[in-house]
């Protein structure tokens, strides 16, 4: 299970990198809305990837 969650966090990190690259690329293609979409998706992918690691105190 631990390996699966580790692999998932790495996959999400790679997804975030791809989404950021697509976001900036879309900006170059003058597709501003698509760019915004990919940048938001990238930020969420990165956040999810680190949230999978972050131990939080009990009771939160």
């Amino acid at each position: 299970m631990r390996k699966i969650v580790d692999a998932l966090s790495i996959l999400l990190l790679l997804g975030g990198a791809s989404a950021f690259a697509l976001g900036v690329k879309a900006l170059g293609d003058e597709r501003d809305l698509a760019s915004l979409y990919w940048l938001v998706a990238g930020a969420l992918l990165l956040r999810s990837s680190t949230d999978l690691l972050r131990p939080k105190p009990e009771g939160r």
Partner: protein
Amino acid sequence: MSADVDERAANELVRRANVLLPGVYAWAATVLYPVSLHGVSVYARVVAGAALATLLAGVALGRRRPSLGRALGLHGFVMACVLAWVLLGPVLAVDRLEPTKAAVGAVGWVLFAFGWGGSREPEHVPEDDPRALPGEPLPPRGKLPRGAVLVLSLAIAGAAFPLIFAWRVTRSAHALFAHAVAIGCAVALVSSGAEIAVRRGKWAPVEPQTRRLGQAAASLTILAIVIVVGVIELFAN
């Protein structure tokens, strides 16, 4: 004794010069030049003058009142410069910037940032400082988790792509934004990559492992919604 005083005075002079010279240079290249153009508001000129005065005051006070000197010479100076840029308005529009002058100004600000930094002096041991807290040396926590270098390398490689794609943006206003976004993305990717690389597995154990999924539930849910919206939009078009 006299040699010590001379050495301290020389060090202080070097420290002041390291901050003052790049600061004045950056100010002259990026603030003085635009405010000296025709048609600039008086407020922008006054704030630009105040920025220089703040820098000089910060450097002058740096030795006697280090925190006040830093607040004035670093934070106050930068804030006054930013305010001057805001007041300049369309004078600083991207299509009116001259690339060489902008690049020279950027170098000035980099040097200014380095001037405020400090490095360990040769033969100086930080633990010998009387303010250092005594205690047992901290042992290394062990080896890095397996694959840490690979994960960080992937993150660094991934961070390069937004920086490369930012150069493809040809619209002038969007180009500056693209570079700023690309730098932000690259920093976020490398930070997250480093965190994932070193905190996997035993360095930050979370039991049971399903709790890790629970921790990320909120962000994963929003992510799923965003993906669904994207897929719907894709098929709608």
